[in-house]
């Protein structure tokens, strides 16, 4: 069994990954509660935003800061466009159909990315905080990792506050509780949904940028990283932001802490599935498992 010094370096890596999964998970849960759509294209949108940022920096020689903003805005706009067109068309369909439609979007975007940005070319995004590492015990930590964790915390807390104290946040919670009554009360449902799509998309763009730096700038890898986010959201039963955050951090940590254990390191990819299944079985055992939209906590 590896020693503590072998595990230590994987803690900041795991926490950073978990922070970004939490960021994405919050976006996914809020969108689901407000619109009933489980957005499986979350990763693909972030990936395309990151590739656009890469092109802006390396081909068009745009300042990096502007490219990063463009990446995040692309996430917001692309998600909003999808929501306003297909979200509306599929509003009356059941959640499985809506989720499958977003999977279609993910696959379409993946095809476009593979065409426009072929895999053979080496690409990377380097944030200014990347090469400023400091030591914490036996672990080397860079400021990008700190930002990833911090951003995850800030967005989780910030979103929870937003949902509690702002008018539009209250409207989103009302939509999550009961869409028909909310509409009857004169809440501008379409506008609230649009806000949810756009906000969720901004988080997709931000997550894509951070993951492109922390993990890899590859369309396939970034698209399917949504699996980690989805697992965190499922463990939270697509309801609780706090549980989403904790689950995401646990998934990120466990996935990385397994790495130095030679006997199971090759099974790391199973981490999100195993944890999600274990959590869901546990919840169903306690009869708390429910598909109903019961509000955002």
């Amino acid at each position, binding site marked *: 069994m*590896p020693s503590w010094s*072998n595990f230590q*370096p*994987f803690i900041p*890596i795991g926490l950073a*990954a978990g922070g970004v999964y939490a960021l994405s998970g919050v976006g996914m849960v809020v969108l689901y509660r407000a619109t009933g759509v489980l957005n499986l294209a979350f990763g693909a949108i972030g990936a395309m935003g990151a590739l656009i940022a890469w092109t802006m920096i390396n081909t068009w020689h745009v300042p990096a800061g502007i490219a990063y903003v463009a990446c995040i805005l692309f996430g917001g706009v692309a998600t909003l466009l999808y929501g306003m067109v297909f979200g509306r068309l599929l509003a009356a369909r059941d959640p499985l159909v809506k989720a499958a439609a977003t999977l279609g979007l993910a696959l379409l975007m993946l095809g476009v990315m593979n065409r426009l940005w*072929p*895999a*053979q*070319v*080496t*690409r*990377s995004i*380097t944030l200014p905080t*990347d*090469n400023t*590492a400091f030591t914490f015990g036996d672990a*080397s930590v*860079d400021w*990008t990792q700190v930002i990833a964790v911090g951003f995850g915390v800030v967005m989780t807390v910030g979103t929870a506050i937003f949902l509690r104290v702002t008018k539009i946040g209250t409207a989103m919670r009302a939509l999550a509780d009961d869409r028909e009554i909310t509409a009857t009360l004169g809440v501008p449902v379409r506008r609230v949904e649009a806000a949810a799509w756009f906000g969720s998309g901004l988080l997709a763009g931000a997550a894509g940028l951070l993951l492109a730096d*922390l*993990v*890899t*700038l*590859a369309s*396939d*890898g970034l698209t*399917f*990283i949504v699996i980690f986010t989805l697992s965190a959201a499922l463990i939270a039963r697509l309801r609780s932001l706090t549980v989403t955050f904790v689950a995401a951090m646990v998934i990120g940590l466990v996935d*990385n802490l397994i*790495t*130095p254990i030679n006997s199971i*390191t*090759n099974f*790391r*990819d199973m981490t999100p599935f195993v944890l999600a299944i274990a959590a869901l079985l546990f919840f169903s055992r306690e009869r708390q498992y429910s598909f109903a939209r019961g509000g955002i906590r």
Partner: protein
Amino acid sequence: MRKHFGWRVRIPVAMLVVAVGLTIAATGFSKTSGAHAVKAAGLACGLGTGQKATGTPIKIGAIAVKQAGTDFTDIPNMANAYFQCVNDNGGIYGHPIVQDLLTDQTDPGALAADAKQLIETDHVVGIAGSSDIIDCAVNSAYYKKMHFNVLEAGIAEQCYSSPAEAPVNMGPRYSADGATQTAIALHAKKIAFDQSNVPGTQYNLGGSKLIAKAAHVPIQFLTEDAANINGETAAEKEVQAAGPGGAVVLVFTPPVALAILQGAQHLGLENKVIWTCATPCNTDFLATALGSAWNHKLYVNAEMNLISQDNGPNSVLYQKVLKLYGSNVAGGIGSFSQFGFLLGQLAVKGLLSIKSKVYTPQTVNAAFKALKNFKTDFLCKPWYFGPLPNNTDFTVYPQDGKMVLVPKSGCLPISTVDPLVKQVRAYEKAHHV
């Protein structure tokens, strides 16, 4: 009053517009082709006549892997770029070469069907330019049965043992041997060998295991999910496995290697161990992406010469062909496109050697099999149709955004501790290669 045009008017007008558009496009294309032909005149591609070949096409097949994390289509695409240059220079005595390329996603069933489609349905007369993780494993027996002698950039074991296959490259196993030898030469105390967990890659570590054992250097083998690589996690794992004074041998495609090396840099690990890599890392794209922080820190086993430091005729022609015809060679200058270029040249040499000028599977494959003593500045030794003709190569490292030859490294013979290398050297000695 506005006049409205019914469908009886609109449809013919639309057809007219489409026809005019197509004509303009065709004119533009032929102008472009014409421009290509003008530029191609004087290039030493094939016969070098500067005249476009317009006869019956000669169909040459190829299979390449194209999936998440692994895309080798640059190899056949560059071979085809050379074919296009040849076609603009008289072709094969007036016959243009047409490439029939099929891509694969490491699916044995589909791969077997692809080979059958090429030979029995599409009726290619030869196969040149293939590069697939498992093509040789799945299809070499079939190629032998159908009397096809395949020119390829090999990966699987069968590419280097089947009499129906002849690789221009060393492949990941022997290139990894070279990277391991370099790590040992740099006094590594332990080696961590890391590669993709794609099926069929176990073969790659065999030679490094023997070489490390012969040098009494411990070696540990790791794998990664290349399609979902986390660079920082992989880099930390490798450095821990290598230990202080150790070396890491990477056997990955450039995007995956870049993710790992950048992950190492984020964690301040670039100076903790010796970093070496097999041939795929030999690309200026990688050197540029890594930046000056990696100057002289990543030793890459390069199976072919460094284009930027070689003004030999093949190197010069390669760059011209890449520029003029290689728009779909995404990786640009680097080992993969060099493999493709050499494969194209070999195929053309074989075709031009057919005295009867009758191009059938029998004549073409006999010509491919008879290829020998092909001298090129890409390789340390002349190429011949055989199991491992490229067994001596170069070591390079990044310097300010480019890959450069490690000074005084010369041509590095791959160790004869690896059994096939020993066999091949004995063959070459006996036949004065």
